[in-house]
């Protein structure tokens, strides 16, 4: 490592310390500054982990999949350099490696593990040359940034052109947009998927993203549907069909609010895994992580141990105890994810108290029209179990209007623009033993996280 790069690492590390002392996360600024000093820094840091770099990208499940994969690597005895705070743009990736390096710019960890934003994929992969890229799925998300789903898929495809020699694309066979990337990568892609009969109602009218053949546009025939548009599809017109996965789940059971159990099959053999994270989509995330681990050649025992040790990611779905009250926080960012959260909330037996926090910053998506593709009608259909919904954030009014048109009694709705005040109000309304559900978009979650952290109830987010 040349002197310039070393200087950049020093500056970066200094800034990480400084921003933490100032009480901020410091996940992007140090990397951004260090790149100004040494534009080649990420390239030289990413070349160091001896087992190479694994990238995780896609619309939903990036953070959880990366966390599971990190846990698997640790179970296999491999140290991991990981952007675990979820800062997944180019500066955030650089910061993560700066933090993993020592003061001479050396990284001793065996594996680099990067969650990468879809739009950042071409640039990031050019610099880090990943040994494996795990792609989770493609849903409509933040269309204001990416324009159209097509473009998102092509950005990820451009990233895949920069795999390390012998590197592998790890693709979701059940998502047509994801699976088709396999046709454009060099080398044999590793597919993963569900080999079970339909496990849910699948695609709802209006919110599905790939019901038409990605090759010819004719509607697919599905012989099984698992989650939104993910399933076993085949085009009757041109014959395009789902590739057969090498890593798959052939049984799922005990799905409840605490977790689920699954049987995982890999080329090395099969095993049963008990997940500690609820939701069917987390079974998909576990499968994606397992496939990533298979691509790295990690043993099955480590895959099982790593998956079973993984607990919820900050704010993704998390139960926080505050004195005699409990807060359940779940990040919401697109229709499919929000629908799953609504299903999880409605499964609970107790009466529901909700705070929904919608911001429209860049990281949330500045276009909030996706709220109209969320099935709030399902929530309104059970409104006799709901005490109140406080709508908050920059788009609090839009959220309230959406609920009104879903059929929610307007008397149960209130608007409080400030997320901190909204949470305080919510906690005041509920009684001892009650649960407050908080459903925020990304930046709203960070705001709310702040007050909960100040009350000393949870770790600051860069420590998770």
């Amino acid at each position: 490592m040349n002197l310039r790069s070393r200087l950049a690492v020093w500056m970066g590390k200094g800034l990480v310390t400084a921003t933490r002392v100032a009480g901020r996360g410091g996940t992007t600024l140090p990397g951004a500054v260090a790149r100004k000093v040494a534009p080649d820094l990420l390239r030289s840091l990413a070349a160091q982990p001896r087992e190479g770099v694994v990238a995780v990208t896609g619309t939903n499940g990036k953070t959880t999949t990366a966390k599971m994969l990190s846990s698997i690597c640790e179970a296999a005895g491999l140290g991991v350099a990981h952007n675990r705070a979820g800062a997944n743009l180019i500066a955030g990736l650089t910061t993560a490696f700066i933090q993993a390096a020592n003061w001479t710019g050396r990284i001793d960890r065996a594996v680099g593990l990067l969650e990468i934003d879809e739009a950042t994929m071409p640039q990031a992969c050019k610099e880090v040359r990943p040994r494996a890229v795990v792609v989770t799925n493609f849903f409509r998300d933040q269309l204001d940034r990416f324009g159209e789903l097509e473009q998102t898929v092509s950005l990820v495809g451009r990233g895949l052109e920069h795999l390390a020699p012998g590197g592998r694309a790890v693709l979701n066979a059940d998502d047509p947009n994801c699976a088709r990337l396999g046709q454009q990568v060099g080398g044999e892609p590793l597919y993963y998927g569900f080999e079970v009969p339909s496990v849910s109602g699948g695609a709802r009218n209006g919110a599905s993203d790939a019901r038409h053949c990605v090759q010819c546009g004719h509607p697919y025939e599905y012989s099984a549907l698992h989650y939104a548009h993910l399933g076993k599809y085949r085009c009757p017109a041109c014959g395009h069909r789902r590739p057969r996965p090498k890593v798959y789940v052939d049984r799922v059971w005990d799905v409840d609010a605490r977790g689920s159990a699954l049987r995982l099959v890999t080329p090395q053999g099969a095993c049963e895994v008990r997940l500690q994270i609820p939701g069917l989509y987390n079974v998909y995330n576990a499968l994606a992580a397992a496939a990533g681990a298979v691509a790295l050649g990690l043993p099955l025992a480590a895959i099982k141990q790593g998956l079973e040790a993984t607990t919820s990611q900050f704010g993704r779905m998390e139960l926080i105890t505050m004195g005699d009250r409990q807060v359940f926080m779940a990040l919401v960012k697109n229709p499919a994810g929000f629908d799953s959260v609504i299903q999880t909330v409605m499964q609970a037996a107790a009466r529901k108290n909700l705070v929904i926090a919608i911001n429209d910053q860049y990281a949330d998506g500045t276009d909030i029209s996706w709220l109209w593709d969320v099935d709030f009608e399902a929530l309104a259909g059970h409104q006799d179990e709901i005490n109140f919904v406080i709508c908050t954030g920059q788009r609090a009014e839009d959220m309230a209007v959406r609920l009104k048109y879903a059929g929610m009694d307007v008397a149960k709705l209130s608007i409080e623009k400030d997320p901190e005040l909204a949470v305080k109000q919510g906690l005041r309304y509920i009684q001892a033993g009650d649960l407050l559900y908080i459903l925020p978009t990304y930046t709203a979650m960070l705001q709310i996280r702040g007050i909960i952290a100040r009350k000393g109830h949870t770790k600051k987010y860069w420590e998770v």
Partner: protein
Amino acid sequence: MERPRIHIGWLYPEYMNLYGDRGNIIVLTQRSRWHGLAPVVTQVRLGETADFAQFDLLMMGGGQDREQSLIADDFMKVKGSSLGDAIEDGLAVLAVCGGYQMLGKYFKTHTGEMIRFTGILDLWTEGGKERMIGNCVVESDLFGGTRTIVGFENHSGRTYLGKGLRPLGRVVKGYGNNGADRTEGVVYKNTVGTYLHGSILPKNPHLADWLIQRALDRRYGGEVKIGKLNDDLEMRAHEAIIARFGR
């Protein structure tokens, strides 16, 4: 007394539902109910023949460019001429983004590919490299006096209106039809074309009611008039956009 029926059509729901266009259908249905009408929604899909004269109100949403070229053929051969006749006859139409472009003569992509439409209205669209994305505020004289319309736009197409056509409004904030002439959308008889989604109708209840009333006038010859609903929440959402982005 039996509730007057309003028959709402939704064209290509499986292809043209990009930026929450489903929200417009939800709003038209709910407001119709609240106005004491009996809404019926019929989806008009690819390959199906349709007699558009039977509808009172038609919604056409936006699609991705790729999907739009898939349906262009069906629109040219199967549906375009019936829709053109119905629009001449005063059918109330809300056409958003891709649906708006399809009412025109053609869409020429920035790579030079031509997608031809039937040219129901004298307007045309040319693709640009840069997408025009962001919150948008428009002033419109559609409602007997100037009112604002707010929404979110996201399009690469630049649409130009022929001489006889009236825009929906003037751009106060945002890009509008083409980012150059400060016009947004189009109004022809009872048809409204626009680039605004968000969805557009939830935060612009006056536009929703304008469409519903026009639809009823054509069907019932002025015998059915809708009243005023309590739109406090909707107008708070409308005003919040103007306070942050408009004027």
